[in-house]
């Protein structure tokens, strides 16, 4: 076997990317869970977790740099390593959305939630689930699945739309709720963006497998179309 070391290191990079992915997946679900329960300590843990995510991302990045410099990858190898580089930076930003939700909870202090959270945790679950399957499709180079997942983003957009309308009714009935409504709207917006970024990961799967750089669907528009 000519390239045992190289293949081993590529596998290592994929494994590390999956580890980073599961850190992010967990962070987004837990950040919403903490908000739902108004558990400030749990949110502090999310912030610490985000620092670990950033660190992990840098460590994978430098490992990939060494690999590119020493192995000079070509063709499929090159597309794969370039895509992992792209995906880890997506994951890092997705981690920031969890951190953002953690910060919202902390900044709310002792104020109660405007309403019990129902759709917002659904958005988080859905996003985390999409992310999990997108990363699995990436390592398996499963183009079919990768093309299907972004369609599910419409469900997240629909939930976002629902949350938005619901919060607006609160604000219209009682304008003093505007700040508390805003906290939740920001949360929902973070989750909507989170799911959008899953699409970018799916696009990388198509790229690695086929060499095609393409946008799978126009993810930002659904929410605005419904306005």
């Amino acid at each position, binding site marked *: 076997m*000519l*390239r045992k070391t*190289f293949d081993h290191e590529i596998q290592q990079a994929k494994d590390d990317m999956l580890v980073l992915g599961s850190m992010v997946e967990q962070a987004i679900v837990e950040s919403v869970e903490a908000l739902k329960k108004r558990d400030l300590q749990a949110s502090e843990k999310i912030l610490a977790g985000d620092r670990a995510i950033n660190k992990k991302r840098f460590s994978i990045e430098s490992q990939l740099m060494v690999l590119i410099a020493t192995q*000079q*990858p*070509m*063709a*499929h*190898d*090159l*597309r794969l390593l370039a895509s992992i580089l792209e995906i880890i930076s997506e994951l890092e930003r997705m981690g920031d959305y969890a951190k953002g939700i953690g910060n919202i909870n902390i900044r709310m202090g002792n104020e109660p939630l405007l309403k019990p959270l129902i759709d917002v945790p659904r958005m988080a679950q859905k996003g985390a689930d999409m992310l999990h399957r997108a990363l699995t499709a990436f390592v398996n180079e499963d183009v079919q699945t990768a093309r299907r997942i972004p369609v599910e983003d419409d469900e997240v957009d629909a939930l976002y739309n629902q949350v938005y309308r619901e919060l607006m009714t609160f604000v219209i009935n009682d304008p003093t709720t505007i700040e508390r409504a805003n906290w939740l709207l920001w949360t929902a917006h973070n989750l909507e963006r989170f799911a959008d970024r899953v699409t970018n990961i799916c696009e990388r799967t198509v790229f690695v497998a086929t*060499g*095609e*750089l*393409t*946008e799978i*669907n*126009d993810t930002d528009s659904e929410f605005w179309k419904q306005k």
Partner: protein
Amino acid sequence: MQPAIRLQSAATRNASLERDQTLKMSTEALCVLYHDFRAISDVNLPIYAQKITAIIGPSGCGKSTLIRALNRMNDLVHGSRAEGQVYLDGKPLYENNVDVVDVRRRIGMVFQRPNPFPKSIYDNVAYGPRLHGLRRRRDLDDLVEQSLQKAALWGEVKDKLHQSGLSLSGGQQQRLCIARAIAVQPEVILMDEPAAALDPISTLRIEELMHDIVKEYTIVIVTHNMQQAARVSDFTAMMMIDDHRAGSVIEFDATNTIFTNPRDKRTEDYVTGRFG
């Protein structure tokens, strides 16, 4: 839905490539035989003007045979013969009435090991032009200077033109050989692993030099160094041997495509180091 940007899309890409390029040379069903042994078989290769075409492939796949067939150097090998045709500016080279010496003036060659003549630097460069009848000292002086300039060697040797070419370093000797090839004002320069015997800095010098001179010449380079092919060339031809051990071109495309998204699985395996 945005239109897809394809790194490959070979068919459309090749069509547009061909539209944008001027063909300088081409081979048509070219085969080269050494006695009964078919070294290369059915090679159809376009060589575009003012571009660098790299020929890559594992050892023994016929790269050197192919490049030597382009200026009829294989004629010098006992027992070799060519079938098919090579065209230069649309004119066939393998014809009885073709002046082989003129073919080799129009299509120069640089080899793997620098091989300057055991003569002065000046005479190395002036050798070809003299052979072709240039006699006036001033014209020769100008031509030697121009050629050494183009070969990025003038600055290093202008004060020692009458020292032996063999006194130079390996990298300088190779640039001297390029100056010697340029001096007869060729249209095409064939390079058979021109940097294989050189250190990394000399290698980069040769590559820079190729970039500089390709504005005036058409270059074909055989190389074992994937990164070199990727760095210097505009087009790449991938060669492989078939079941009868005859080499042929299995894929030809823009270099960017060959090294990011080749069509043929064998090219992919070769450029990613899975064999070869």
